[in-house]
């Protein structure tokens, strides 16, 4: 961890990304006072977490799923957690219901699948109805339905005005989950911006336009540049345009009497942007396949 500084705001889902070994889990543990930074401070809600006597009402956290005793039933696990923070049995029943584990509450957690343990961990994070929620790789092991459920849960939690920080090493997961992204590599901050801004970093994003000839192409390039788009010439009559929508390009071309032979939007790949950004900070690079 090196001079890492970022913030996550209330009311939005913040994706916390980085390659394996980038320090995501370590950062989350520091936030929770589980390990001490060698210098500096970590505060949650304006207070070092370890100063608090009870935590569940301040921060809900899912660190590695599996952090339950395999010999204990899901219900007993949550009941003990709740009891330590003076949270009643009713709340235990309602979070079990919410994550869909009510029917298996009496079964030992050791027999749970990874997906079920993730749900149990999420239930534990929700117990205290906290304003800040931290989830470390919550989508691991979930089936597609589970992934959809978790996403809508995160949306709802953020919609209720909470801080929701979700870590992942897979960009594709975050694409549909997060509003903002914090990307780290080797313990340093690489990017901190909205998903849309991040996507724009990806080479290959933008709109391909082909006009009937090179002269038309030059005219259109001038028009588009005047509109604030950035334009690159590709071949004789082709243009690569970013910073403007295909719709608007078509309107402008029509207004200037230019015939378009091709108008293709290239979806930005977050995955690509992520790979480009973190290429230098992969901790243990593999050989070429």
């Amino acid at each position: 961890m090196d001079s890492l500084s970022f913030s996550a705001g209330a009311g939005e889902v913040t994706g916390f990304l980085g390659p394996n070994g980038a320090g995501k889990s370590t950062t989350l543990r520091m936030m929770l006072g589980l390990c001490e930074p060698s210098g500096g401070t970590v505060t949650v809600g304006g207070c070092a977490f370890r100063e608090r006597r009870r935590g569940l009402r301040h921060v809900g956290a899912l660190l590695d799923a599996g952090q339950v005793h395999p010999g204990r039933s899901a219900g007993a696990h949550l009941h003990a957690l709740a009891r330590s923070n003076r949270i009643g049995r009713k709340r235990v029943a309602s979070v079990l219901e919410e994550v869909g584990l009510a029917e298996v509450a009496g079964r030992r957690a050791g027999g749970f699948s990874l997906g079920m343990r993730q749900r149990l961990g999420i239930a534990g994070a929700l117990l205290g109805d906290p304003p800040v929620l931290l989830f470390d790789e919550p989508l691991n092991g979930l089936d597609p339905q589970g992934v959809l459920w978790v996403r809508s849960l995160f949306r709802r939690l953020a919609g209720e005005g909470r801080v929701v920080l979700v870590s992942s090493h897979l960009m594709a997961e975050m694409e549909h989950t997060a509003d903002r992204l914090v990307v780290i590599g080797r313990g340093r901050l690489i990017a901190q911006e909205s998903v849309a801004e991040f996507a724009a970093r990806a080479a290959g994003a933008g709109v391909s336009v082909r006009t009937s000839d090179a002269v038309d192409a030059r005219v259109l390039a001038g028009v588009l540049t005047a509109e604030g788009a950035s334009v690159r010439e590709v071949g004789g009559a082709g243009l690569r345009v970013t910073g403007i929508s295909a719709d608007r390009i078509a309107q402008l071309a029509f207004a200037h009497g230019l015939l378009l032979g091709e108008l293709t939007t290239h979806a930005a790949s977050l995955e690509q942007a992520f790979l480009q950004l973190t290429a230098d900070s992969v901790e243990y690079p593999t050989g070429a396949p």
Partner: protein
Amino acid sequence: MTTETFPAAAAPAEPAARLRDLLAAEWIKLHSLRSTHWVLGVGALLVIGINVNSARSNASRLEHQPAVDPVNPDFRFDPLITAFVDPAWQILVILAGSVGALAVFGEYTTGLIRTTFTAVPDRRALLTAKAAVVAAVVFVFGTVVAGASFGLTQAILREHGGLSLGDPGALRAVAASALLAPLCALAGMALGALIRHATGTIVAVVGVLLLLPALFQGDTYRWVAEIGNMMPLSAWEVLVRNPESTFDPGKYPMTITEAWIVFAAWPLAAALVTLTAVHHTDL
């Protein structure tokens, strides 16, 4: 330097933190593990069984013996010792130590400790509650085993001088045996907090509670004997000894008071080690 700041959200309404809630939570945790029930249940039967069996074999041997031993006329049968057969209580030492150790290393090896400390960042309060619950449960276990061992063995030996709790040394022996269990459990917790691995901790429990007292024996060197006297099992042996018996205490004997001091010092030191170790551990 690392800084994370979240906008200070309106502080959630929170009821006052009470130790009572932590005690209740730790009780739920201990009670909800089958292993606790198994270890304590089977352990109690085993220890009581060994003691009862020794009383039975002594009783049947005494049936067929003349009242006065022709070889050694000074010999008098000590009924108290049959309730406190060494191997049986060594098993109890290991079981109680393991229950204490398991309550701590079980949290580390499963990763549960992170969930626990996220719910209760006040680690010292949490460990205090855990130690109190484990010690109380194991004390009940020790009392049942000591009471049943004493009651059953002395009933079996009633024809041969079986004692009642009112006899000299009897109550002391039962109390010391009942207290031996929580002492060992707290020592187990301390070892669990220091080592945090299952196998290593159990090996250490056996090593510290059983092997160390066996190592520091004999009268050759005073310091060896005196270190031996500081061990819980040695102190226990002094406390369960029948004051009427003709046992030779050796060159460097331990007094009853010293034995009780050992019984008080170990749990206190163990609790201190546990709280300190857990407070400073990065997870």
